């Protein structure tokens, strides 16, 4: 599978889900369980992605604690302080970059 295959297939599937929603009769929404599962799916996947993106290592060491962890901590603090998304993201990058520049937790 090439990167193009992944990009196109994933894009088609996500778009197809949007279109499918317009084809479903509105009364399906009255049933709470599918709606709840779809909403919670988003939460679960994003939370798991936060973890893997923060501590995923390479083949030899699948778990890696490095500059990403303190950077994520800083972004969490900024989110509590209601900083805008872009500030949170940039701050995480800056913290990780500075820690690596200083040779800590490279």
């Amino acid at each position: 599978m090439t990167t193009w295959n992944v990009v196109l297939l994933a894009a088609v599937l996500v778009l197809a889900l949007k279109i499918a929603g317009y084809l479903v009769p509105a009364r399906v929404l009255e049933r709470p369980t599918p709606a709840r599962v779809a909403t919670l799916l988003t939460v679960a996947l994003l939370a798991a992605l936060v973890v893997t993106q923060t501590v995923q290592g390479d083949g030899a060491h699948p778990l890696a604690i490095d500059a990403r962890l303190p950077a994520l901590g800083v972004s969490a603090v900024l989110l509590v302080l209601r900083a805008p998304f872009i500030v949170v993201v940039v701050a995480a990058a800056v913290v990780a970059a500075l820690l690596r520049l200083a040779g800590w937790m490279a």
Partner: protein
Amino acid sequence: MAGPDPERAAAVRAALAVGLAVAAYGLSFGALATASGLDLWQTCVLSLFMFSGGSQFAVIGVLASGGLAAAPAAIVGSTLLGARNALYAMRMGPIIGGPWWRRLLAAQWTIDESTAVGTAQPTLRGQRIGFWATGAIIYVGWNLTTLVGALVGDLLGDVRAYGLDAAAAAAFLGLLWPRLRTRQPIAVAAGAAVVAALTLPFLPPGVPVLLAAVVAVVVGVTNWLGPAAPAGTGASGAPALDRDAGL
């Protein structure tokens, strides 16, 4: 500002406020996408056709950590993350109305923000204006900033030196944050994070993320920690729009 048409003005104002803030996400997406190995065209195709932030970040995040070996996990992960858009589409269908081609056009722009602004307006006309204005502003802004971000990302060499891997983690946290308002999603997020952390050392990249989705299904079906009265107040899948949304 309150012109002769306050209904329209209110909807457009909300669309502009949300749309412009969100379009800025595109910068981080573009830069992170090229950093994770996508070329400029692949990055832009994702924003043009997939057009759903969480799913797009999932594709590049999983590919960045697992390479093409993680391709199936990247595709399944982004599709599952896009499942909520189908819910929004069901919600928007009766509001959009009109001939089938209008709903087909609306489908591409049916995302968190356009649904939130649309459904938050008091009148049907305001809801339509809010949806289309937000969709248009974000679609244009998201794609332009994706292009700029991808061009900038291409210029950077070692992405770890710039902390872009940490920025990706922060991006996921920023997308997650506004959804953690009640006990149930907080419990699901915590459970999913634990599942991902515990299985990460033993499974191929991307698979722990899919496994964590099981937590959502179990809690969702049993409605553990959910509101006592089912179905709430017609909350039916529309994302809340408020200042906390990090937008």
